[in-house]
């Protein structure tokens, strides 16, 4: 089993600057784990610690059940694809891919066979004798991927591999990586990105990093449907989940919440009697809003609409919202041309309403 296990892993610089702490993570063989998080959250640092490019300040990293904290990168059975491709500029594509094998003193014929097979798989055969500078960005990234494939590592590490590509190429390469994963289901991959679309589409599980630690680990849909805290709730999904203040006035299998303007909303999040009177944040995703009559939960004036064709983003100011506060955003189907300046009322189905207390989801607390 080529899994990874991180136990209380921490990273400090110069003994005082703490970047990551108490990272506990169990990665199974064959998973594609995506690290996401805002810039500066330490996701690349964590990846580089797994690669062995950064020292692990504290805790234990096990690959395949073996403690590798002090094992040099080359012997960890990993390969890494860098954001900037990191191709050797003075070597041809062939030599770039063969470098690791040459260092490992593999026989020449074997190297040639592996390189040519990999090149064919990545459609790089016509470029084998070119230098990296004569390739396009997408081709370069494919060479970088090829360079890790030839080593046949147990764990693939991707450090924002698509960030330097333009939008169209990014989608194409993303699909290529997904195919690559499919072709080797027993290989573990760890993928760092700040792009949530990449995370949602590629990951078997996503690790959301924030505030020096892990905010939540789960499958993409788990994170989307049942975020553990406000951070994950707002980080996953675009536009972000709306949060509005309210007070619990009815508990049980369903929770009844009174909003600031005196309106009510029901949530499927179960609560106990102790929660009565608790001040909470009600979270509703823009796409979960539906238009309703005056009995709706949120009523207000439409500020701006953004028509995206298949949907319209409607920014509206709830009656009780203080001046200057972020407007609530709803994603309504189709084109909603004439909403601007009008008064609308919206509501959401109880199963779509999230409830957070002090940043944490009540759903998880009460489980």
């Amino acid at each position, binding site marked *: 089993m080529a899994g990874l296990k991180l136990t209380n892993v921490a990273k400090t610089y110069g003994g005082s600057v703490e970047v990551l702490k108490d990272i506990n993570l169990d990665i199974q063989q064959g998973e594609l784990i995506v690290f996401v998080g805002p810039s500066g959250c330490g996701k690349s640092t964590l990846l580089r610690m797994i690669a062995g490019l950064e020292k692990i300040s504290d805790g234990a990293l096990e690959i395949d059940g073996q403690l590798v904290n002090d094992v040099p990168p080359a012997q960890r059975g990993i390969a890494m694809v*860098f954001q900037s491709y990191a191709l050797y500029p003075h070597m041809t594509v062939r030599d770039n891919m063969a470098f690791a094998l040459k260092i490992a003193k593999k026989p020449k014929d074997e190297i040639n066979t592996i390189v040519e097979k990999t090149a064919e798989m990545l459609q790089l055969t016509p470029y084998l004798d070119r230098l990296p500078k004569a390739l396009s960005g997408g081709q370069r990234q494919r060479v970088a991927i090829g360079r890790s494939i030839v080593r046949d590592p147990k764990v693939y590490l991707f450090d924002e591999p698509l960030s330097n590509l333009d939008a169209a190429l990014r989608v194409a390469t993303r699909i290529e990586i997904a195919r690559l994963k499919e072709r080797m289901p027993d290989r573990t991959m760890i993928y760092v990105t700040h792009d949530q679309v990449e995370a949602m589409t590629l990951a078997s599980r996503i690790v959301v990093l924030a505030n020096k630690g892990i905010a939540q680990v789960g499958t993409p849909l788990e994170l989307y449907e049942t975020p553990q805290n406000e951070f994950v709730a707002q980080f996953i999904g675009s536009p972000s989940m709306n949060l509005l203040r309210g007070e619990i006035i009815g508990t049980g299998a369903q929770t009844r919440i009174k909003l600031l303007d005196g309106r009510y909303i029901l949530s499927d999040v179960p609560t106990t009697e102790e929660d009565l009177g608790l001040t909470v944040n009600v979270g509703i995703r823009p796409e979960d809003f539906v238009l309703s009559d005056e009995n709706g939960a949120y009523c207000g004036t439409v500020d701006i609409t953004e028509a995206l064709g298949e949907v319209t983003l409607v920014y509206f100011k709830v009656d009780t919202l203080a001046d200057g506060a972020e407007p609530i955003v709803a994603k309504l189907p189709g084109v909603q041309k004439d909403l601007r300046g009008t008064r609308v009322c919206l509501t959401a189905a109880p199963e779509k309403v999230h409830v957070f207390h002090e940043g944490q989801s009540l759903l998880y607390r009460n489980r």
Partner: protein
Amino acid sequence: MSPLLQGVVMILIGLSGCIGYFYVSNFVLDKIIFPPKLDDQGRNINRANLVRPWLFLLPALLLLSLYLIYPVVGSFYRSLFNRANTEFVGLANYGALWNDSGFRTALYNNFLWVLVVPAASTFMGLLVAQLTDKLSWGNVAKSLIFMPMAISFVGASLIWRFVYAVDPNIGIINALRDTVGLSPMDPLQLPFWNNFFLMVILVWIQTGFAMVILSAALRGIPEDTIEAAVIDGAKPRQIFFRIKVPQIKGTIMVVWTTITITVLKVFDIVYAMTGGNFKTEILPSYMMDYMFRDDGRATAVAFVIMILVLPVMIWNISNARKEMR
């Protein structure tokens, strides 16, 4: 008028002359030759912009070529005449050079210098640059190694005279010999090897130069190519020779050729250390031996040196231009 004042006045006259030239020529170009008027506006502005660089650069180019080309032609012309500059002798001076064993020794020694000094300096510079790269006190070490660059060749030679001194109380080589009970000797009179003792001085000076340039080049290597090599399993030595050095090959060539050109011009070291005796003569010092005594012969040597430097120079410039791209 005191000479100081004279100098200042001349500088002022020169400067205002230059500024005046640029101003007036620019005015003439813009207002009189190609005035941006009515229907010709755009075209005339473009024309003026085409002419302007030539207008501004021409005086400098002319003066430069005058002072570069005239001496070359003049030297060659002078080398065709006899010692007293009274009689045209054709290529006789060159023939005499070829038949002179002193010249052949100088040529041979110079060949050794060109072979050894650039290679040794570049190699040492690269070594120092790499070793000091990640060191906290690396900059101090680099400053110390760069220091000899600031010393004139003659000054450096004087310092090394002490190193090579025969007296064991002064010279380090003889001090070492003394401690193991060997009698003192003069390193500079040791046939063949004395050339290398002289080369050491230039290597000592040029290592700093190579180090500074190569250190900057090493810093310019993308860090992630090195990290990729680490992950690929390369050992530090393999990373250095297979990842780093190839990436700064262009810079290494520029440093190498620049030092080669320096080597072909250096005469001070030989002149100050041995005066060209004990078979340590090289071309520039050989030339100095004849200068003012037989200018025909000296200019012939100068011309030979120029012919030798030229291809290196061209190669150097083309390398440097490639680097800049």
